[in-house]
């Protein structure tokens, strides 16, 4: 009998080891170590809600607010990296239909756990960003769509919202500016697909998380066929800093194309896995050595998954020579994505890694479009029989053609999230597959460790 809604007695952030590391540049996570920063008074003492006051009390008109965000050239932190300012600008100005702002906190990309830090430690920063965003697109109502498994984070955000209501930052006529706004926490129920923009909208409409056909785009016809903007938690958390310090200050940080800082959630074979906020453009080599404490056990880096499981893989040389921003990673054939970095050392068997990912995508495919529903299942079956039963050479060609015929052939990009990595593994690590073909690989499927060198 699962009874979980009421039994949290001492609500406190669970994820705690956030000591700042050299090389980090903490804009959002500046006060994350302050005890009880998740409560309103402590957050206000650290300068919280100044941006909201600045926007609402001066009744800043919506055009300049959107221009400010566009000026900062901040890009979406959820995975697509779409400039947030433009997204806000697409919302039609003069429709009588209600507008909605949805915060995408359904963080289920394997390797990504950065949103959790904001949700548990800095919920008010996100709430402040959401109110400013709602003001910019005239949204009367906004929803925080948190993944169902984050029960702790849901409690914390729920209480933060109640505090915001009591403090007058939410509800009717906020800070006397005439702008009234409702905010609701909506719990997901365990589906990776609801992280996709239109999948989240379908889930919020009480349906299966099936992505919607685009066109029409959500900015024109999203939640309940009304204009909707879906932003990631981290993107919304950047907004208060931008309003407080101005767009130029934000644009100066990081590289011209990928401005500001990015929170990286590092896991895998590093000595200190965790969440770090670094300036965009920092070379990966420094990030690995200084911030993450180098490879665990002094091992050699074999491969890097930079931006979560849907990012194509990078060889060690590519990783060492790239800098952490959208353009450099893209030039190496991968993508920054959600910043869920998984570091793989030389003891890992990459075919097993790919098989595990294929299992994930087969389980999480929503089953709406045929290429993805059948393709993910097929890729996983091929990889399963390639590793467990008999490896065949034509499997490689089959993997290649199947993936090529899944990319760009579906309503959402889940099919691409497995097809592109498969192509990158085949192209960049053919040796791994050759081991299987010669039958010389004896890896344990338990944890993908290659047994022979311990």
């Amino acid at each position: 009998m699962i009874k979980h809604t009421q039994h949290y007695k001492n609500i406190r952030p669970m994820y705690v080891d956030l000591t700042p590391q050299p090389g980090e540049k903490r804009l959002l996570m500046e006060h994350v170590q302050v005890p009880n920063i998740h409560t309103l008074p402590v957050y206000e003492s650290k300068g919280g809600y100044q941006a909201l006051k600045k926007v609402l009390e001066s009744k800043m008109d919506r055009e300049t607010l959107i221009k400010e965000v566009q000026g900062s050239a901040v890009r979406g932190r959820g995975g697509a990296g779409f400039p947030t300012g433009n997204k806000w600008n697409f919302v039609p100005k003069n429709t009588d239909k209600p507008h909605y702002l949805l915060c995408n906190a359904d963080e289920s990309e394997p390797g990504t756990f950065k949103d959790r830090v904001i949700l548990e430690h800095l919920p008010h920063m996100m709430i402040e960003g959401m109110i400013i965003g709602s003001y910019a697109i005239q949204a009367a109502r906004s929803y925080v769509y948190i993944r169902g498994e984050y029960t702790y984070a849901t409690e914390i955000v729920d209480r933060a919202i109640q505090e915001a209501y009591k403090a007058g930052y939410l509800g009717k006529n906020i800070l006397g500016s005439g702008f009234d706004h409702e905010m609701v926490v909506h719990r997901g129920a365990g589906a990776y697909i609801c992280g996709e923009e239109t999948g989240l909208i379908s889930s919020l409409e009480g349906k299966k998380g099936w992505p919607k056909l685009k066109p029409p785009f959500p900015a024109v016809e999203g939640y309940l066929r009304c204009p909707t903007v879906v932003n990631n938690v981290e993107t919304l958390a950047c907004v208060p800093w931008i309003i407080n310090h101005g767009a130029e200050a934000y644009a100066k940080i990081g590289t011209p194309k990928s401005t500001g800082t990015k929170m990286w959630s590092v896991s895998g074979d590093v000595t200190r896995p965790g969440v770090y906020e670094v300036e965009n453009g920092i070379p990966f080599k420094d990030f690995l050595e200084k911030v993450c404490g180098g490879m665990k056990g002094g091992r050699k880096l074999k491969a890097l998954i930079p931006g979560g499981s849907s990012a194509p893989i990078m060889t060690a040389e590519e990783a060492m020579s790239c800098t952490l921003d959208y353009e450099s990673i893209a030039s190496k054939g991968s993508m920054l994505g959600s910043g869920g970095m998984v570091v793989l050392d030389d003891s890992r068997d990459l075919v097993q890694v790919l098989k595990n990912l294929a299992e994930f995508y087969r389980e999480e495919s929503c089953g709406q479009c045929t290429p993805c529903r059948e393709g993910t299942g097929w890729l996983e079956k091929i990889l399963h029989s390639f590793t467990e039963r008999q490896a065949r050479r034509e499997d490689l060609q089959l993997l290649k053609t199947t993936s090529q015929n899944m990319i760009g052939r579906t309503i959402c990009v889940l099919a691409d999230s497995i097809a592109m990595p498969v192509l990158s593994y085949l192209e960049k690590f053919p040796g791994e597959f050759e081991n299987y073909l010669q039958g010389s690989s004896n890896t344990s499927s338990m944890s993908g460790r290659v047994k022979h060198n311990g």
Partner: protein
Amino acid sequence: MAKVKINGKDFEVPTGQNLVDAAENLGIDIPHYCYHPGLSIAGQCRMCYVEQPGNSKLQIACNMKCSDGLEVITDSPKVKDAVKWSLEFHLINHPIDCPICDQAGECGLQDYYMEVGKYSSEMREHKQIKQKAVDLGEKIVLDKERCILCGRCVRFTQEVSKTSELGIYNRGDRSVIGTVNDEVMKDNYQVNTVDICPVGALTSKDFRFEQRVWFLKEVSSVCNGCSAGCNIDTHHKSGKHIYRLKPRYNPEVNEYWMCDDGRPTYKTANYDHRLTAAKLGGVELPTNEAVTTWMNDLRTLIATERTDEIAAWIHPDLTSEEITSIVKTLRDEFGISQFYSEDADKSARDDKTVDQLLKRADLWCNTQGFLKVTSALKLKLGSLNQLEERLAQAKINHLVIFGSEKNVGVQSLKRIRAALPADCFTVLISPRLQNAELFSHSLAIPSISHYEKNGTIMNWKKIEQKLGSDFRMFKSAWSVEEILTSLSQEYQRPQKEVSRA
């Protein structure tokens, strides 16, 4: 009208029309499974790929509306390869059931496999195993393995019949179609899902294993179940046996759908329900002889000006042509004045839609046509009670009964049978065996069933509808017009004196 460029050629199509429909009307076939003109757009099956010049990513055509300047290419090699691979994805988990599947011959996968596929599958792994032959009530059998999850039936139950009994459960390639816990479906339009299902996942129990579709020929007709007048196609095998009815698109009357009560109406046309030979008191005789014996009795009455002793019973199921030929021959030529029929006015007055889609309360299929023709020909019609009284007073010596093939007319025939005096010479003209058994002592002449007729009937919206069948199931069963014309020819021929039997 929008100017559209498809495959390099310019076309004029109504603006806003769906690209798949527009292309189909122009003879360009864009493969599609989940798109159905009567349902919402799903965009799931990813078969309707088209390439737009200047956009490397292939677009799906079913989500495109025709607008001015739209330019698409449907037969470039890139599109062909993409569609071939979409079909491959459909087929990798599809069971090889063609020998035992009723849909073989009209299955979407087979059609496009022949058009676009034509290769050997590269799938070596095990296919997904799902439930087969699930019983969804007494009308439908569901096979979850064959289902390609296009979602047409689910959208149909949600948008058209509004019972939302079907759903797609689970996720990914474990998704299955079905009702909750495979309960029985109570929807009165569920057999429509069998028609729109592109594969053999949903098959109708009534047609299960009956016949292979490539043996069947189809003929356009109209359902005689009720006054809605849904346009249908009658599927028959070389005119010998009718196997099923399928709805035909008609925007004003029934769009793409048809109710389940109209489906089994073809059964009354098949052998076991039909009067196949003329009978006189139980003895079979050729139809022309039956007509002559009828004429002999009629002739004596006409010759001795006792035409008021002759009565005729008609019903609104007759087509307008049949009624006109009855009136022309019996009334104008023979001078019979007493005509009785079902109360068409009453059934027209309290006719209303039974459910919110198609089914009507009035079970006669040509009520409006009957009223129009009888008023045009100024035919004086008596009611059933008046006929019973006159029969009771033995004023009628000669009764001509036109029996309908449906149950709805049997009630009044029974009352006539009860009121019939012994010496009255009755002639029954009906396709139905049960009516002939009812009047076993009298002369019974087999007429053709509704699905062999060629006349016009009018539905409750006063829309003229043509019955276009071109086959006759039994040589001995003539159409009403043929019977009456041979009757009048018999009348003209100089007759040697025959004493009245």
